[in-house]
């Protein structure tokens, strides 16, 4: 190590780069010392020193050969390992995908079960409430509140809005429908007086998040597939016009015009929106 340092400093002295001024003997590129040294002294200076000392080199042929074997083995190992892990990674990916798909199937089955059980609950509740005055009041309340919060399926006149990525959306993220765009669309519909909204059949409730997860948009933690069908129930005379004037409507007009995204609005005489099966509160209780 000492010899290396000595020769490194001698390399600096031998340099002929421009000098800043007689008063300041440091070369202009003193701050680039490391790179200069790497480029100017690429060969280990010890080679020259040992050679000058005149040591014989035949004694360590075994060590030399061993190092050569080690280097060769390292190359081979790295190559083998890289080529071996590639299919392994692909396999892991496929396995993860299949696990996700299995979990989604299970989730679907559970949702179906939840819907069936909710119907049971409704039926049993009606039976248990009986037919007196308070029971009728409660039943009326349930019938009014259920559709509003999204626990029961609803139908009525409304709008069907179909949106999709621009045709040339392969690379530019700006040409694709983002979670923000869907949020703007839905907020516009609420603003326009929509009473119930569903995206690709997923009913929106107070617990439904619309967010981007990787490449997909999720509603109620379910990934959506394109195109996105947004259905809304509201006043058939005003819903369309008020939506067009809302911030969401304006945003989508611009997206359709500037980005060539698909954006089709049609009025529907009757739209049926399913209940949100995830409407369960486990922790939130009534305060009083």
């Amino acid at each position: 190590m000492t010899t290396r340092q000595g020769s490194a400093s001698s390399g600096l002295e031998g340099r002929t780069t421009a000098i800043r001024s007689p008063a300041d003997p440091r070369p202009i590129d003193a701050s680039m010392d490391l790179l200069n040294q790497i480029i100017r002294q690429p060969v280990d200076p010890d080679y020259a020193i040992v050679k000058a000392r005149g040591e014989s080199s035949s004694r360590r042929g075994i060590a030399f050969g061993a190092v050569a074997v080690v280097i060769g083995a390292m190359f081979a190992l790295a190559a083998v390992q890289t080529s071996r892990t590639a299919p392994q990674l692909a396999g892991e990916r496929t396995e993860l995908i299949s696990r996700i798909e299995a979990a989604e199937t299970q989730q679907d089955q559970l949702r179906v079960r939840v819907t069936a059980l909710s119907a049971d609950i409704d039926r049993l509740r009606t039976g248990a409430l009986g037919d007196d005055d308070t029971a009728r009041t409660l039943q009326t309340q349930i019938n009014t509140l259920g559709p509003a919060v999204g626990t029961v399926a609803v139908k009525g006149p409304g709008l069907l809005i179909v949106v999709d990525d621009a045709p040339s959306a392969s690379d530019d993220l700006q040409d694709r429908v983002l979670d923000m765009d869907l949020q703007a669309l839905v907020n516009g519909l609420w603003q326009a007086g929509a009473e119930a909204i569903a995206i690709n059949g997923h009913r929106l409730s107070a617990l439904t998040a619309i967010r981007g997860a990787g490449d997909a948009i999720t509603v109620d933690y379910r990934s959506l597939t394109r195109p996105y069908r947004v259905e809304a129930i509201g006043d058939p005379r005003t819903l369309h016009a008020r939506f067009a004037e809302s911030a969401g409507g304006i945003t989508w007009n611009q997206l359709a015009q500037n980005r060539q995204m698909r954006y089709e609005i049609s009025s529907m005489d009757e739209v049926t929106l399913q209940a949100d099966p995830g409407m369960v509160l486990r922790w939130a209780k009534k305060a009083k």
Partner: protein
Amino acid sequence: MIPIIGLILGIILGLFLEPTIPLALQPYLPIAIVAAMDALFGAFRAYLDGNFTDRVFVVSFISNVLIAASIVYVGYQIGVGSQLSTGVVVVLGIRIFTNAAAIRRALFHA
């Protein structure tokens, strides 16, 4: 002759024995290879300059690999392991290129 036979022997050994590298050492293998390449090119250039000695080669190879690995190790301890790996690769890469250019000039006079 020894180095070429050794290299080929090592490659054959590595390909056929396929020893598994411990998981903890795997980040260091590529770095060790780049350090080894640096030592190899430096040795070849010294050989062309006429002052090659295998003692210096063995010592420079081992110290190169150890220093590169320890830099990366420290990097992983302080959370900049991949960045330091990149740094090591860049610095050694510059040296490899410089040496390769000198070797080319010495061999082909071009």
